């Protein structure tokens, strides 16, 4: 057959609005099916890992299989609480945006297991390099809720002095690096930070986050190269929530292979993990820590999860995906799954759950109230002098003159 010319392939998702959602193309192994090699296994023996899916919680809520971690119920309850708090806070502050109290908001609904489990597992002197979708990290470490709301309102008490878009937090004392709007850039900072830890002979680990869409950035690759070449003690996490604004994961390459498989090209282990399974997230992170501590350097983890809500307050997801996709997502809701497990092992019940929800809702309302007493966006702000501070360690004549010109002295 003579060759007749090429055709440009434009990937498209299985289903669009108006169609029934379908997840048939996802091959999801049952909980317990994916083996757990010893963390000290050399990377070249781990090349099948990225094609499995480490899962612990089965459909009934049992913890099963080789990845089953050893976590006490108290810690599980702390995880549940942090996830719930994240969910409730997100709901409440999303509403605050709709009420005109701030300019922007983003939820992490459906993805809370990843950041909360990792936050609880990592140490106080470790550092996470967050995306905008890992609020759970701060919730798990009891960051003051009012400070979050003050930041979201850019009001006079905003810890970031009114300089940053809502939710692009920074919380050094909580092991939470400064977020920025541009994607991917901080991934390299995580590796640099980890290299510094190793340079000093410290035992601190860096944990980097990136969205599956953002793995396409050049910075992702350069970061992995550095992590691999210098054996940096870090855990690099891809939160594959299937969507990047309106683009399904296939636009970032998901139809061709897994995101975890990107590890192979750097000689790193690539784990693929049920990101809606608190116990699996815990176990995979634990495995990566042990690996780093054994002198084996970095691990790449793909957390397979789902963005249950819109990208941000700026988009309506039903314009680009079937409206019932979120409820049909085969890996469920991470909060319900942990709750089910805790209930099953008789460490939780509906009454306690209801009480917890009520208590957390109360806390969130109180925080919002406190922050609103200070002021919402435009109603209250830090002194205008703050606009000119922190550009440099000390302002130069330009900033001093301009501060004067702006009447901010």
């Amino acid at each position, binding site marked *: 057959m003579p060759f007749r010319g090429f055709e440009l392939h434009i990937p498209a998702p299985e289903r669009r609005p108006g169609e029934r959602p379908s997840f048939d193309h996802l091959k999801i192994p049952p909980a317990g099916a994916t083996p757990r090699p010893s963390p000290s296994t050399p990377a070249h023996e781990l090349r099948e890992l990225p094609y499995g899916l480490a899962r612990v919680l089965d459909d009934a809520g049992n913890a099963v299989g080789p990845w089953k971690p050893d976590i006490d119920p108290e810690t599980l309850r702390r995880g549940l609480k942090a996830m719930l708090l994240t969910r409730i806070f997100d709901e409440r502050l999303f509403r605050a945006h709709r009420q005109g109290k701030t300019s922007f908001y983003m939820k992490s609904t459906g993805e809370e297991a990843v950041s909360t489990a990792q936050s609880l597992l990592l140490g106080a002197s470790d550092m996470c390099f967050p995306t905008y979708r890992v609020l759970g990290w701060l919730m798990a470490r009891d960051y003051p809720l009012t400070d979050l709301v003050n930041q979201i309102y850019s009001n006079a008490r905003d810890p970031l002095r009114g300089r*940053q*878009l809502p939710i692009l937090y920074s919380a050094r004392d909580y092991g939470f690096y400064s977020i920025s709007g541009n994607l*991917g850039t901080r991934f390299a900072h995580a590796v640099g930070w980890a290299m510094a830890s190793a340079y000093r002979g410290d035992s601190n680990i860096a944990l980097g986050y990136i969205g599956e869409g953002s793995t*396409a*950035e050049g910075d992702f690759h350069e970061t992995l190269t550095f992590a691999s070449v210098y054996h940096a003690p870090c855990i690099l996490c891809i939160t594959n929530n299937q969507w990047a604004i309106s683009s399904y994961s296939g636009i970032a390459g998901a139809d061709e292979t897994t995101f975890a498989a990107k590890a192979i090209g750097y000689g790193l282990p690539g784990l693929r993990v049920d990101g809606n399974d608190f116990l699996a997230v815990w176990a995979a992170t634990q495995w990566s820590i042990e690996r780093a501590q054994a002198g084996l350097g970095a691990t790449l983890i793909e957390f397979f999860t789902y963005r249950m809500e819109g990208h941000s307050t700026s988009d309506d997801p039903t314009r680009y995906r079937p409206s019932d996709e979120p409820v049909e997502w085969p890996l469920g809701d991470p909060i319900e799954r942990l709750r089910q497990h805790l209930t099953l092992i008789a460490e939780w019940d509906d009454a306690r759950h209801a009480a917890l929800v009520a208590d957390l809702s109360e806390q969130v309302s109180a925080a919002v109230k406190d922050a609103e007493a200070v002021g919402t966006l435009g109603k209250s702000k830090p002194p205008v002098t703050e606009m000119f501070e922190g550009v440099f360690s000390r302002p130069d004549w330009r900033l001093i003159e301009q501060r004067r010109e702006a009447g901010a002295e």
Partner: protein
Amino acid sequence: MPEKGTAANSSMSMIQALNSALDTMLGQDPDTLIFGQDIGYFGGVFRVTEGLQAKHGAKRCFDAPIAESAIIGAAIGMAAYGLRPVVEIQFADYILPAFDQLVSEAARLRYRSGGQFWAPITVRTPYGGGIFGGQTHSQSPEALFAHVTGLKTVIPSNPYDAKGLLIASIEDEDPVIFLEPKRIYNGPFDGRPDVALKSWAGHPLAEVPAGHYTVPLGQAAIRREGNDVTVLAYGTMVHVAAAGIEQSGIDAELIDLRSIVPLDIETIVESVKKTGRCVILHEATRFSGFGAELSALVQERCFYHLEAPIERVCGWDTPYPHAFEWDYFPGPGRLAAALARVMEPA
């Protein structure tokens, strides 16, 4: 320029005018294709490409990975093949990962290859502040492009120009950075946040002809004639300038540059020679901003006509700060004050 007010004209927002420009070019030139993040099925985060995939097909209008360097890089390769790719960078703040492709490749290809290859690409990107977008959804990077020889940089201030300049950019044989002032996508904004928002409807420059027309690159437009001082502006700042001039009560001439490369130096010089004074207005940070080049050029060419120092009214030399949107954004009040200063007797 087609006649205004004919049946084919209709009042469009800048979004619609840009959409119409892309639709026109996709319709008439099979070598034109467009891609960028979220621009396909979804129609772009600002809806500029709405409906274009459905109408022209996925191969003509498609989503791209979050990889700005490859978006520009692939566009250059396509252009070298003979296509006319138009790409969208979701926010101008996110063009920086592709800066090397623009500077070292797009801008240099024709020169270094002795004319064997060139890159007629158009890079559309929303820019500028006034929308509470915070540090990375508000910046104005035009000076960075202006310094890079080989690139053209175009900035419309109204729907009519937006369509005509975008078509001219796509048809241009050189790489064009097309900066879209997002604050005026849906209506003119004069820098007074307290005044009720206007839409483009009814604005004379929102009368946009159907079909193909161009506004040539490198021709400024005098938006207001005046005798006492020349105000240079582009993008959103054209509207702020008009308000500032009104507020000042000074008989200023307002020039909308429309493109900063190529720059319509003749119109500028002629005006300043007439008025003897000049104030430059832009959103970008002042230091080493494009206002510096304008100031230097005017000073070099009109020195003996100048009756007062040229002033620059610009964004402060700080990152773009969320809470301080209106303290940062150069509004009509700051322009009016500058106009008053330059009119003071020496």
